[in-house]
């Protein structure tokens, strides 16, 4: 009995139960979200603007604190372990200009490991590795705000990869990218081993990357299941403001 309990704790990366959240101005952004994601799963989060996708992602590392339970790798998220949880969940914002706040690319990628108190060698190693993983080696000394959007988005991902998270939560990583940058980013995401929850409007990409799709609308999860099955349900997608082609 005990053994199975431990197994579920490790196998479940994210477990959210009845999560509700209202913004200070009274907008109810989440109205009771239940979601369980197994370790290693790749999940697409789709839904119209204002559905609550970003709000949900911001809950995964405690940036926003709503009512309800959130367990990350078996640990109930609370005020005390928030910083611990943040080493597990790599959250990447939609706008890389929000994510990148340091003067150089390298500083930004090294911020997480430095904050963790790792040794100099370890920080250097992790930053280099992270930049290599996203294919941005050699840009260390560049100023982030002078790079192309595609480059910025990759570097934003590198800034959390350097923290060796087990879960990646990416908010609209494909928005405003041109087709070739999108394809490159798609290839990158395919190579990453982490558990992934990715919000996107890009239905065609979902098919290639994510076996499971969660549809949100108006603060609720309205569909959750096999990507092919959900994408085949045009009536469902149309009701929630999405297009297949």
């Amino acid at each position, binding site marked *: 009995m005990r053994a199975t309990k431990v197994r579920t704790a490790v196998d479940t990366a994210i477990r959210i139960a009845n999560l509700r959240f209202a913004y200070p101005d009274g907008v109810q952004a989440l109205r009771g979200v239940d979601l369980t994601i197994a370790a290693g799963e790749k999940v697409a989060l789709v839904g119209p603007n204002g559905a609550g996708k970003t709000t949900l992602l911001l809950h995964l590392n405690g940036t926003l604190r709503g009512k309800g339970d959130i367990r990350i790798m078996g640990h109930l998220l609370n005020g005390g372990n928030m910083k611990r949880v943040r080493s597990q969940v790599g959250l990447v914002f939609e706008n890389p200009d929000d994510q990148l706040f*340091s003067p150089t690319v390298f*500083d930004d990628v090294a911020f997480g490991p430095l*904050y963790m108190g790792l040794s100099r060698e370890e920080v250097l190693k992790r930053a280099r590795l992270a930049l290599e993983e996203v294919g941005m080696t050699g840009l260390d000394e560049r100023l982030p705000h002078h790079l192309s959007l595609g480059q910025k988005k990759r570097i934003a991902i590198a800034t*959390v990869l350097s923290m060796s998270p087990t879960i990646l939560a990416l908010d609209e990583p494909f928005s405003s990218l041109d087709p070739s940058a999108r394809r490159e980013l798609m290839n990158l995401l395919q190579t990453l081993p982490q558990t992934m929850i990715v919000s996107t409007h890009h239905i065609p990409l979902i098919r290639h990357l994510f076996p499971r799709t969660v549809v949100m609308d108006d603060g609720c999860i309205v569909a959750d299941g096999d990507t092919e099955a959900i994408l085949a349900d045009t009536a469902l997608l149309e009701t929630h403001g999405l297009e297949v082609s």
Partner: protein
Amino acid sequence: MSIGARLIERYEAGSSVVHSTDGRLKLLLTVAYVFTVTLTPVGHWIAFGLLAAPLAVAVAASRLPVLLILRRSALALPFIVVAVPLLFTKEGDALFTLPPFGWTASEEGLLAVLTILTKSWLSVVAVILLTATTPAVELLRAMRALAVPRILVATVSFMYRYLFVIAEEAQRLLRARDCRSAELEDRKCGGGVRWRAGILGHMVGSLFVRSYERGERVYAAMQARGYDGEVRFLEDRPWRLAGIVVAIALALYLVGVEIYARY
């Protein structure tokens, strides 16, 4: 509305007489009030009492929480720091001597400090009342109607418009930093104070660069819509007689107090 926006926004919605008074009158009266308070002679407590009375009535009429006004009036506190040296530098009857330095406080000095505090506090409360009962847009309109130089009005209006944008940008930067401020189980985290201060410094710098670049973009967008250095506005509302009568009465009262205090 984000937390940043709530920190900056000074207007408190309401429907009191003070709220509905013409913004131009409120602005004029506030400026007149601050001038009168400033011109009142040192240590004339009766005059300060007479000046505080209409302010107290206005605060009560505005139906704003007194606690809110008191909290915001803490803005006057830094004046203490500026005023305190006067206690020791002003010549006069000795009150006490500060042992380690041998500085002597004078009675005249104390009077000066208390006067400065009273004046700054009364002025700050008056301005708080103005900003809490008048929407910023209305204040800008009032400045324009009262022939404040247009370039100044335009500057203030841009500041008001983009302060929120920049505050939110700052908030997002801080959020991004916090998201990556993680701890590991077995080691000391957070880096040194110097390192953290450096990070914050870089963030302020990048915020400045972004604001500057945004300024360029906004200017380009304005030019694209025909901006030629002159900001044009629609005509103003008519003046209402009742408001003018009350304003003149208050102005006369202020002048009366000042004459009484001086002669």
